[in-house]
């Protein structure tokens, strides 16, 4: 009994201390808020927000509730994080591999890129891309079309938008393609393990992914029209584009800055991962007759990924959290809409800040959970 108490005692005391500290802060906040006549509650979430937002993925205007405004901000944050992660991953892997190139020029340019972009504060880079782009880009009426249909202007990038017929059939074909690719991959693995034969899985997958959806256009009744952005005059000097899809310059600047910045860190993770594999592995693989491509794909990368994934997860988390700098350049993310405008209009600082903090925490934990799951799936499996 005594022995047990000795073990549990310190933990119990710590627990009580933590509860007391939290209790004290809550109590303190409560009494202070009461003294100042501020009520605590989440009732405001259902009230009409009465402010508009520049860019939203879902239908929203000021007649919707604050809860809806929160959702708009959350989705905009997730959008930036998603695009940023894709840009930074692709760029990071390329730069990381380039840093190991035997070509002097490629290796030095990659090293220069990394050292340049990772050593300048991110906020400055965001300002640079935004205001530099704003200064450099043409007004809508002066824009030269790219490929005849894209217009990059100071008011954003205007691209043709799709008008689908029978979009669902097209989506089903994509799902079917993915399922069959998974099946073929499993079959190929079995075939190799049992009979030692190899299927060209990659080329089969790519062709499946292209051919199946294409077929729906020919026989499935799917068709696609484009709505092109057309210049329209509003007054002597102000113009806008009608039709098509407008991507605000704030979104472009933010994803670009986040992607370019985070790519440098991912590049270093990739380089570390590849260099972490001993030279002997490569030589051994070559000695049993694998081609350089096979060596990278079958021997080096599976081992390198184990080193690359955990630090890369950190970079994804950083990127997501850094996206909150959006407020500086008017991109309507969670911080700008919810912890900015909504907080100002309602004055509910404690409620809104804690919701925002919990939201970022949940996003980060989800990313972390996904990446840990992926890391586990590629870890060494003892057979």
């Amino acid at each position, binding site marked *: 009994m005594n022995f047990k108490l000795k073990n549990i005692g310190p933990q119990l005391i710590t627990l009580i201390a933590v509860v007391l500290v939290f209790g004290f802060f809550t109590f303190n906040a409560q009494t202070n808020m009461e003294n*100042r006549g501020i009520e605590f509650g989440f009732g405001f979430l259902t009230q009409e927000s009465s402010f508009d937002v*520049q860019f939203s993925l879902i239908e929203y205007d000021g007649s919707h509730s604050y809860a809806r405004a929160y959702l708009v901000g959350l989705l905009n944050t997730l959008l930036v994080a998603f695009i940023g992660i894709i840009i930074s991953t692709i760029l990071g892997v390329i730069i990381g591999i380039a840093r190991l190139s035997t070509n002097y020029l490629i290796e030095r340019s990659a090293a220069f890129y990394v050292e340049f972009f990772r050593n300048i504060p991110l906020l400055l880079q965001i300002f640079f891309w935004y205001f530099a782009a704003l200064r450099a880009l043409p007004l809508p009426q002066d824009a030269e079309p790219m490929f005849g249909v894209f217009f990059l202007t100071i008011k954003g990038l205007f691209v043709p938008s799709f008008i689908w017929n029978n979009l669902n059939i097209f989506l089903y074909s994509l799902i079917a393609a993915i399922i069959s690719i998974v099946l073929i991959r499993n079959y190929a693995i079995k075939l190799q393990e049992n009979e030692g034969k190899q299927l060209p899985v990659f080329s089969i997958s790519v062709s499946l992914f292209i051919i199946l959806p294409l077929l729906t256009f020919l026989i499935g009744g799917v068709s696609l029209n484009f709505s092109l952005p057309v210049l329209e005059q509003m007054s002597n000097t102000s113009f806008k584009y009608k039709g098509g899809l407008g991507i605000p310059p704030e979104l472009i600047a933010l994803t670009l800055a986040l992607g370019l910045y985070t790519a440098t860190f991912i590049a270093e993770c990739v380089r570390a991962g590849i260099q972490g594999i001993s030279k002997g592995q490569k030589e051994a693989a070559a000695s049993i007759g694998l081609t350089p491509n096979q060596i990278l794909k079958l021997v080096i990368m599976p081992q390198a990924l184990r080193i690359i994934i955990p630090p890369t997860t950190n970079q994804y988390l950083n990127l997501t959290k850094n996206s909150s700098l959006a407020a500086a*350049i*008017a991109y309507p993310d969670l911080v700008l809409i919810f912890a900015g405008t909504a907080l100002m209009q309602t004055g509910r600082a404690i409620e809104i800040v804690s919701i925002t903090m919990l939201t970022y925490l949940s996003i980060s934990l989800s990313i972390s959970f996904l990446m840990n799951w992926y890391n586990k799936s590629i870890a060494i499996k003892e057979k």
Partner: protein
Amino acid sequence: MFKLIKQVTSFVAMLAVLFAFSTETMAAKKSKTLKNTQKKGFVRCGVSQGLPGFSNADASGNWTGVDVDVCRAVAAAVLGDANKVKFTPLSAKERFTALTSGEIDILSRNTTWTLSRDADIGLTFVGVNFYDGQGFMVRKNSGYSSVNDFKDGISACTNLGTTTELNMRDFFNSKGISYEPVTFEKADEVVAAYDAGRCDTYTTDKSGLAAQRIKLSSPDDHIVLPETISKEPLGPVVRQGDSVWEDIVRWSLNVMIEAEEYGVDSANADSMKTSDNPAVKRLVGAEGELGAAFGLDNEWSLRIIKQVGNYGESYKRNIADTGILPDRGPNELWTKGGILYVPPAR
């Protein structure tokens, strides 16, 4: 006998409670904020991050502006020296939290008095030191000469977390015009984005437009449209729950306006002590005991007028002479066609 003891004790207890209450109200008379301010030796004042005419710091860190003068007036009244003010520059987003959390004691930052702000979030507005209204700035060559020329798809740059955002929506909705709001946290970035051509129009309080226009690369290429789409009574704000402090700030502002009405200014204030008009004598502390109600001496108002000046002097120094809004418009005394009208200091 036992009963009697019980009765006596309950009577004594009752007395004690009553006494406790009466000392409590006496203590409340001495405002907590006032006491803290006098102990610290300076007034903690929240201002903007730089709005010429209202609150703006020069290269050496001296703050000037009509909003700044309200805080200086309070410092002159309670501390005897208009320079004993610590200014905290705040963004629109931070301002109310800074006040309710006790980081500052007066918020004098071109803040619009609205019902929800006054009633909902632990703030009390004490008066109006500038009657403003929201307007639009456009490029001269754009051909817009009135807000009625605006068309669907117009993009409007503005500040985050202000009534501007809400008025803008009301305005465009009532006109049935779709618009693109581009909202920045800091005024400097709004100006930079509008200047670069990101937006077709820049909307905020008209005084703000006039002040920010100076910061544009070529101010003469821009005009402020004639229409005013909202009422923006700007004024100082205090925390809820300290009525004495609230009164001090309110009457420091009122005294400045009333001084202008009676022609008392920083130059002639001392000589006005011998005036024939009792209202003027009260204003400079030569008659009555007005300061006592706040726990201040009788010369508090005289110090405000001598050190900061009356409202007209403050307006001229900060807004008219700097070329921001030479015409006082509604911010003229009621006796001269404006709407400045304050309750009498008596």
